[in-house]
């Protein structure tokens, strides 16, 4: 696999979109967190309404992991977009055929792409961990690994986005079209998820039936649902009417969806004409 990844690196390292998108992502993670950090520090604490609900510092240690993961989750589109471009490029240039003609197996071709998606998710997570650490230390609180599991949720979300991007690319093959479908699917799923969430609240209120936030049971929202903004006093007030977060169920679902995406992409490359 190392040998395959080295070849993949030869394809990627001089690709401008790779350099641009990954720098945007790294800078974006820092920037988006800096905005929240400075808004909270300089403005929120000055507002009298905020004082009423008590002190809330999202970048103190133990909360920094969760806040950074949640905030960075918003720009996971960038690595997913990169995965779409890397995969659809192969179809556009017909190099997916040439790689196999030259001596890769179909299996190797799709496996190395999945591995690339996995590595991209891991690197994104490392960037998040570094950023969380910097903002945590800047908050002058003592270091703690409590809540570090949220970076794991971030990794799951990053991996889900990348694998959905890979699957859509494998199925659709054309860059523009695949990117469009990716966005439309995200929007559509979010919409359905909102409806399901409203229904979940209604079920709990009217029938006393707590099925959890059902919006989180959808493929891309499963990973989304694991990442939340840290509980602040306001959120605590709303908890009374919200359905329970069944974290372990959502995690299992998330993993199941990942297996499904990988299996589907793999089968498509192995079994069809290229």
């Amino acid at each position, binding site marked *: 696999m190392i040998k395959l990844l*080295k070849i993949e690196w*030869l394809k990627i390292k*001089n690709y*401008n979109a790779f350099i641009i998108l990954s720098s945007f992502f790294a800078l974006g993670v820092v920037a988006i967190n800096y905005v929240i950090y400075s808004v909270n520090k300089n403005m929120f604490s000055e507002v009298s309404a905020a004082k009423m609900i008590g002190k809330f510092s999202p970048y103190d240690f133990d909360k920094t992991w969760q806040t950074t993961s949640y905030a960075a989750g918003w720009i996971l589109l960038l690595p997913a977009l990169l995965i779409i471009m890397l995969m659809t490029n192969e179809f556009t240039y017909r*190099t997916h055929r*040439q790689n*196999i*003609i030259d001596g*890769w197996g179909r299996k190797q071709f799709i496996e190395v792409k999945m591995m690339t998606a996995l590595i991209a998710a891991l690197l994104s997570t490392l960037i998040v961990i570094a950023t969380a650490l910097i903002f945590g230390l800047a908050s002058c609180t003592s270091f703690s690994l409590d809540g570090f599991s949220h970076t794991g949720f971030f990794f799951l979300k990053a991996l889900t986005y990348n694998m959905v991007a890979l699957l859509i690319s494998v199925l659709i093959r054309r860059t523009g079209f695949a990117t469009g479908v990716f966005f439309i699917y995200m929007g559509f799923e979010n919409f359905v998820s909102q409806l399901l969430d409203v229904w979940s609240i209604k079920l709990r209120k009217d029938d006393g039936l707590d099925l959890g936030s059902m919006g989180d049971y959808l493929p891309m929202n499963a990973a989304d649902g694991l990442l939340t903004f840290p509980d602040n006093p306001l959120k605590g007030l709303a908890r009374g009417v919200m359905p329970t977060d069944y974290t372990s169920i959502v995690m299992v679902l998330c993993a199941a969806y990942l297996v499904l995406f990988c299996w589907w992409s793999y089968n498509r490359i192995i079994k069809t*004409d290229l």
Partner: protein
Amino acid sequence: MSILSVENLCKNYGAVQALKGVTFSVPTGSVFGILGPNGSGKTTMLGIIMDILKPTTGSYTLFDALPDENSRRKIGTFLETPNFYHYLSAVRNLKITAAIKERGEEDIPKVLEMVNLTERKDSRFSTYSLGMKQRLAIASCLLGNPDVLIFDEPTNGLDPVGIAEIRELIKQLHQQGKTIIMASHLLDEVEKVCTHVAILKKGKLVATGDVNEILANDDIVELGAADMEKLKVIIGQLNGYSNIKEQGNLVQLFYPVGTTNLENINRYCFDNGVVLNYMQLKKKSLESKFFELTN
């Protein structure tokens, strides 16, 4: 040993049958032409052999064994279009090919020189002309000096000088003992460079074998004389030919390949009082043979 052996290969695209039970084998050391008009299934067949298309039924072997990625690494293949990363230079593209083929990079300058691309080796592939792209694809086939090469329409898009160069290269490679499989719709290309041929028509194999047997099964002797009437009379009594035809001002005699003896014909006519003023031995034209086979 046969390099490639195809057994009853069929491929359907929905209701369209692109290949209908094709069977043939490619002997070691041959230049094997796959000849057929556009849409006859040449590229489909090579695509199946390279595992980028799945056959509907049938099987094939490479190097007398079930094919896998290792057997493909031993073959330099250029299929249909030059496929490279547009944003990378020739050298960077060839590094990727060399790595996939598990060959070293030391061959890269040599193969670029062979196809006259050394000067542009650091330019991005997207800036290349069609002919240059084509030549880069051939260079990539030559990486690692493989014993078997597969070219699909290798001279497509090249100018006459480029075409002559590629044909010369194929001849040189053949002289080095390499086996070359070449798909083409160009009759004279196959006639000029191939030792063996398989002819495809609408997905069916029409004929396969030695080029000389398949493409030229008759020798034609054309004769002309001042007294054509007398010539026709005496030729009518001559033995050995399989057919006789009149073609304009000439008489055509058809002989099985290799059985023609011009000296005897000339002497016979002279002894019988006819002096020939025209005599030519012709191979049956490839074009007419091709039309005969595919129509």
